[in-house]
């Protein structure tokens, strides 16, 4: 089977953010990550496009994305002092949304750096 080849892919596992990785992938998984280090290879090869988990969980029970978004928004909105935390393994675009959301919520905002 022919694999899709992606040149100059970027690995976000560690702070090196190597951007010269060549990925060979089919629809479901990445089969090869050339130039990546041991950690990078494991990172790329362990993720799949399968539906391994439910879309969302509310109180441990499966829920739809829409329900979960509604519930998340309600919890955050009702809180007197919400906390927005993490933002390590995600994109800058998502981080910008997080900062904006925290601004509107009047929340605490913190990343991994403070650990």
């Amino acid at each position, binding site marked *: 089977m022919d694999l899709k080849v992606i040149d100059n892919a970027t690995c976000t596992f560690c702070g090196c953010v190597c951007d010269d990785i060549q990925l060979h992938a089919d629809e479901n998984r990445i089969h090869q990550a050339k130039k990546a280090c041991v950690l990078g290879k494991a990172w790329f090869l362990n993720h799949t496009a399968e539906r391994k988990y439910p879309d969302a969980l509310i109180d441990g029970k499966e829920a739809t994305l829409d329900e979960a978004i509604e519930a998340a928004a309600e919890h955050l909105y009702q809180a*007197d*002092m919400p906390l927005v935390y993490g933002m390590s393994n995600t994109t800058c675009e998502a981080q910008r949304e997080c900062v904006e959301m925290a601004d509107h919520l*009047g929340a605490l905002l913190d990343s991994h750096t403070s650990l």
Partner: protein
Amino acid sequence: MNKIKLTLREKPVVVLEAEVISPDLFVEQSNEEIRASVVYHGKRQKRIDDFFDVEGERSDCIEIHGDLNRVRHVGRAMTRGEVTIHGDVGMHLGALMKGGTIEVHGNAGDWVGGEMKKGKIHIHGDAGQQVGAAYRGSILGMQGGTIVVDGNAGIEVGMRMRRGIIVIGGTARDFVGLQMKGGTILLCGGAEIRTGAWMQRGTIISLKELALMPTFAESGAYNPTFLNVYSQHLQALGVQLPYAEADGRYRRYSGDRGVPGKGEILIWEPAV
């Protein structure tokens, strides 16, 4: 004497920011105005009387009862009057204060007297971290006044302080007098590690042995005359500082050579 008495009725669930609890404001306010003063419960604006019972008005003498460990910024930037707290109190007590006195019959949180300029704070219990210290990025911490903690204190006591006196009755943790530029810190129960790290000037006196940084050099033992004066001054605060030659002497260390600084650490050596 006319007094304002606040009693905590409703314990805050999250942090309560109450910089409005200040003699400078209360002295001109009626009871109704005090009750209506805005405090922040987390992000929400609330009234003081949502949390406290308020008795009295128009006084710069404030007495507070209850467990205030989530109540922050009490006495912030105050310039006059008295605040007495019966119970624990949260962070930033008396931060930036310019006058008056604060007394706490209980423990206090971090940044007690942070960047204060004048006035007196007495904590009968323990204090948190950064007593009399500078906030992140500031060049100067405490610039005057007195802080007495009867119990223990956390890290970075007197960080970047320029002037004033800090007395810790119990043990302090790491980095006492970090980057200190002047003033005096008295450690009655000693401290953990890195005392005086990067100090430029100022004096740290310890009545117990200290583990010093390798960048401090011993430079003699003596009984400095200025300690008589200090001792008298501290006596008024209820602190005993030995200075008589018959009782012992002080080993003097200078540093921190990494800077290089001209600070001194005096360690008391009782006569055998």
